[in-house]
């Protein structure tokens, strides 16, 4: 039986990318000591913002007078999505950093708020479609049954890989990354040295929001170029889990994301291949069970256990 491995890998990449994008952003946020649970809300904001911007920019009445607008529409969509995600994140940041609100509750409020606002804005876009923000390499590379493994993806896929590398380099090889990690490990010391804890955290939160917004636009511009309420269907929560079981390390994040994507795709392959001796819900629950198992295993292993940033989830209180 000839199993198309290339096609399977391409599918896994497509499934994993949005989670990887959101998780990469959240990694920076958590490294700075903040826990932003609002990823799902920011993704939905990004999804509708990206779709709306792409749709409006592709509208013939504009592209007739400015044809370059039509070609750039999806890119514009991604940028707008990033901004929308960042705005949601900054709302969270203001409440948590400046007003000292509880991080868990504020993050949850952002999830609900983002969901509601995206539905409200999206009401006017139901039933519309845009061209998918798909391959950027020419057909002979992108459609080739083997070469598509490398060349067949949407720009956002390559962007995701690049960003993992950028984040790794930033955290481990730059002074700014060192400051960020210091703020996350010991905010009082960092403060006494003279770093602006609040400033660093605002930046990290905004970055996380932008990445989550871009992750959301992956849903509405790449996978299914349309808008539907709650279309991210819980992927934001998976991204959060991913940061934890990556041990807050960028390299592990990439591996962990693909591990999860593998299981999500495995569910579909099992169902499509007729593994009916196990109920289909068993396969559907598998990725989540595996997430728990991996979380447990990673936390249990002595050598492999990476510590969370010491200040994670605690607000900065210099005059405590």
């Amino acid at each position, binding site marked *: 039986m000839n199993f198309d491995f290339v096609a399977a890998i391409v599918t896994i990449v497509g499934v994993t990318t949005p989670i990887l994008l959101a998780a990469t952003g959240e990694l920076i946020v958590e490294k700075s000591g903040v826990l932003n649970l609002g990823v799902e809300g920011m993704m939905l904001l990004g999804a509708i913002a990206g779709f709306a911007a792409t749709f409006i920019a592709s509208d013939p009445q504009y592209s007739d007078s400015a044809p370059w607008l039509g070609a750039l529409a999806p890119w514009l969509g991604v940028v707008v999505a990033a901004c929308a995600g960042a705005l949601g994140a900054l709302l969270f940041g203001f409440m948590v950093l400046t007003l000292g609100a509880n991080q868990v509750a504020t993050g*949850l409020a952002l999830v609900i708020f983002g969901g509601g606002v995206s*539905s409200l804005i999206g009401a006017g876009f139901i039933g519309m479609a845009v061209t998918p923000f798909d391959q950027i390499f020419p057909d002979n590379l992108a459609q080739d049954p083997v070469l598509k493994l490398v060349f067949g993806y949407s720009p956002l896929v390559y962007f995701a890989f690049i960003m993992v590398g950028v984040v790794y380099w930033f955290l481990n090889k730059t002074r700014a990354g060192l400051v960020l990690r210091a703020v996350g490990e010991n905010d009082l010391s960092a403060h006494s040295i003279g770093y602006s804890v609040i400033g660093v955290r605002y930046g990290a939160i905004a970055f996380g929001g932008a990445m989550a917004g871009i992750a959301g636009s992956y849903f509405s511009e790449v996978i299914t170029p349309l808008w539907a309420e709650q279309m991210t269907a819980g992927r934001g929560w998976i991204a959060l889990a991913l940061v934890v079981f990556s041990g807050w390390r960028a390299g592990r994040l990439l591996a962990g994301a693909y591990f999860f994507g593998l299981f999500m795709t495995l569910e579909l392959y099992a169902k499509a291949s007729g593994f009916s001796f196990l109920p289909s*819900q068993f396969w559907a*629950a598998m990725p989540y*069970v595996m997430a728990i198992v991996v*979380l447990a295993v990673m*936390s249990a292993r002595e050598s492999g256990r990476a510590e969370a940033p010491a200040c994670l989830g605690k607000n900065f209180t210099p005059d405590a």
Partner: protein
Amino acid sequence: MIIRFEKRREPSKVMQAATPIGAVVLTMIVGAIIFDLIGYDGPRAVKEIFFTPIFASYKWQDVARKAAPLILIALGLCLGNRAKVWNIGAEGQYLVGGMAGATVAYFTAGHGGVWVIALMIVAGLVAGALWAAIPAFLKTRLRVNEILSSLMLVYVAQQLLGYLVTGPLKDPNGQNFPQTAPFADGQRLPSTLWGTPIPPGLVAAFVLAFVFFIVMERSEFGLGVRAIGEAPKAARYGGYDANRLIWQTLMISGAMAGLAGLLEVDSQTFKLDLGFTTSLYGFTAIIVSFLGRLHPLGAVLAGLVLAISSVGGQVAQTAVHVPYATAGIFQATMLFFILASDVLVRKRIVIVSSEPARKALGGAA
């Protein structure tokens, strides 16, 4: 002139009580304005969402029905949140509570009576507690974050429900629809009590709110819970066993969620079907617990507010044609306002002018 936040010596009790009310009022004002600006009849929307369910007596039963599970689950969450144990997966525990009840009903098919119902209630409590025991175990033994483990279990619970209603518990006379057989008469709790619009769940909620209040404010256990949350290191020195408290708070909140699920299934729907997963009470209850300032009596009031706004959201949909998502936006906004206003509880606003004399604003500490 500079505006500064100055930490109060003690959190302001006046502000603690006033801020939730202020949050709700501010949400109404801001909501009315914004919805008006985007083209809907804003003030009317606010009226339908917040006031119609209070004044229209035919809506009371719906409000009561929705408030019951919200308050029950929130009570358990208040306890855990005070200890800074975050049970985000209460929805999963709610679902397994309902599933446990339906399973008991299935195995006692044809029978009924007080003992069967008591068994169902116990099953709901135990199932919820056990489902929450998993994150408790993972947290205490393996330091796995309970937010994520309890959340992942929500998805597992949803799939388990799907499995049960399409497989082992499926009604043989149900035309192969994914649902259980309807419960026998003797297995059912009454939907409302003594001719009032009050469901049994709401009575349970009021009673348990009182119990939780006594426990949290006056018992050794409650003291330990608060100590672990506010000053974990000191609490440990003081002899409180953090691990035990984690187990206890998680299992109690799980049991409460399971009870809520059981009561919903046994006093309202009398069967289990896929629609059971759509209400998401377990997540809304998190908002309730924060809106109620993690206080059992606050949770009761907050639960009523959330129930009113949910019911009102549906009325507004028909009356003002605002989209269904509107209620959620209002609820999230209330939560934002109350979280933001937390700062007024802990700090007071100080305006420093260039003159030597200072004015302090912000009410009495």
